[in-house]
């Protein structure tokens, strides 16, 4: 089942009197339960592509169908709703609310979705259980380790049961060992049927995915299915 269908999508910025082509005529299809890594050096347009896929930004031209709905012309509020219900973000810098505990951070998307309190708590606890943080849920971000923070962020991404999980350099701020643990977690989520899109510039992180899309100068340079080179036997 097709989740993401991007056709000839371009994104241009104007910087002073210069126009920067961040994305040029990019076409891309991603199916349900794929595990895709988007790679490329800085300036290749991978952040822009991630922002467009994540409905944080709108394309200048081209078509973007998300779950067979054209989102390329949607307004701010409609995009917010798509982000809320269909997309789970995991960021390099975790992006948790510092003053709220883990449970509240995970609950937040459900507040914006208008779920009632008891349902929210149940879903949030459930998501925290999936990332093995059930016993830390009343701790604030500054009382958690980097890996734990990222797991809270993953729980927040999971809690609305979104169509895709969009992870932008999720291990960038973590040491290798913790990074591996987080990648194992993504592996597990993939096995459970989630669609995962990973943005990274690290080859060994991308190797967890089973499809790698390489960007250069705003264009797709290579899009290949790969044999999983890293497998966990747990």
């Amino acid at each position: 089942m097709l989740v993401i269908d991007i056709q000839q999508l371009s994104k241009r910025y104007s910087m002073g009197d210069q126009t920067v082509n961040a994305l040029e005529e990019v076409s891309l299809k991603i199916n349900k339960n794929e595990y895709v890594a988007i790679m490329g050096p800085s300036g290749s347009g991978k952040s822009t592509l991630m922002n467009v896929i994540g409905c944080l930004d709108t394309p200048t031209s081209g078509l973007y169908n998300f779950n067979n709905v054209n989102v390329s012309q949607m307004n701010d509020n409609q995009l917010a709703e798509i982000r809320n219900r269909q997309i789970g973000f995991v960021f390099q810098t975790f992006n948790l609310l510092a003053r709220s505990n883990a449970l509240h951070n995970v609950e937040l998307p459900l507040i914006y979705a208008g779920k009632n309190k008891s349902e929210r708590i149940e879903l949030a606890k459930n998501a925290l259980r999936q990332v093995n943080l059930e016993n830390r849920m009343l701790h604030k971000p500054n009382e958690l380790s980097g890996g734990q923070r990222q797991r809270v962020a993953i729980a927040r991404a999971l809690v609305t049961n979104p169509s895709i999980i969009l992870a932008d350099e999720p291990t960038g701020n973590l040491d290798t060992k913790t990074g591996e643990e987080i990648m194992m977690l993504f592996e597990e989520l993939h096995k459970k049927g989630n669609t995962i899109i990973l943005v990274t510039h690290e080859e060994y992180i991308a190797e967890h995915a089973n499809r790698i899309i390489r960007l250069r100068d705003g264009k797709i340079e290579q899009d290949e299915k790969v044999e999983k080179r890293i497998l966990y036997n747990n």
Partner: protein
Amino acid sequence: MQAKFINFLFEIREGLAISFGAIRANKMRSTLTTLGVIIGIVSVTLMGTAIEGISRAFNENISRIGTDVLYIQKHAWFDNDAWWKMRNRKDIAMKEFYAIERNSTYATLICPTVFTAKNVKFQNNTAQNIIVIGSNEFYPEISGTEIQYGRDFTSDEVLGGRPVTIIGFEVADKIFHNQNPLGQLMSIGGFTFRVVGVFKEQGKFLGLASLDNRLLVPIQSFFPRWGSKRGINISVKMKSMENLEETKEELRGILRKSRNVPPTKEDDFAINQQDLFIKAFSSVGFVVGGIGLFITALSLFVGAIGIMNIMFVSVKERTREIGIRKSIGAKRRTILFQFLIESATLSLLGGLIGIAISFPLSLLINQFLPTSMPISIVIVAIILSIIVGIISGIIPALRASRLDPVEALRYE
């Protein structure tokens, strides 16, 4: 529709939780920011309390005189510019009182009054500077002063100038202490009078001059003792308010004739009416209200600017937070309300501090005016501070709600 409404309630609750968190995290800054609002709310509540006090004083003191009483005096009450002219007028004399008594058809009760101040004494107790009023048996009714113990004068006592007196509550308290004053003989300025009645306690006029520090004697017993040349005032109670103009005209005619005022000359007396007092009085209220309103508006304006400023800072500081919220599905409206709620909460905090400060100050006003801070003014203050908060939060909140999520997430 209902789901949307419930959603909205969740967002408001979330917004409140966020604002409390933000204010708690910046206690000092928040309190200082609300200083303008605090001053504004103190001023509006104190003004409200003072106006309430003035009108209550008015109701307790002045209105019982009755609007249907006219006062014939040498001076007009509120005509300051001609005061020096009125000084040289002939005093109002008993002759005029008799003329009105004889000829007026619109008057129901008429009483002449004359004043002096004397020391009074009973046994070894003395009281200084008690106001001695000479009048007739209608004085208590016209002046709205009830007799609590004993009785009024009879007309025989008035006409015969009997040495009897009705004393004020404070006089009774000062010189009779716990004894029953009725039937006792007391000295007024060296002359002996028998107490026949005690007035009911009146309290203070506008909280200043005691109305209980006086006593009443028949006017015919006043003149021989303290001088018959004194000018008097005449109070006239009308049959009905509908005949106000006719009554005034009739009195003018009687007085001009009695005082031999030639047709070409102006009146050399004044017919005063309570509503003149009401007018002057309400203008006092207007002045207090005007000054209070000016201070309130000014400080609330300053307060609003302060809150707006701190909200801009708050939005700037929390750009990243806004980005996070937007990325997980907060709509423009959600962010807008979040910051509006925050500025309203901040301003409300100022309002509550203001009320907390002005409450003890209102007790101070209570020393002068019979008042306490009315609950309505507290409600007004609360609503006002919330409105100030919302108005000053609009622009920062709009700016926050329109942030581009990509930019906001990148903000360091």
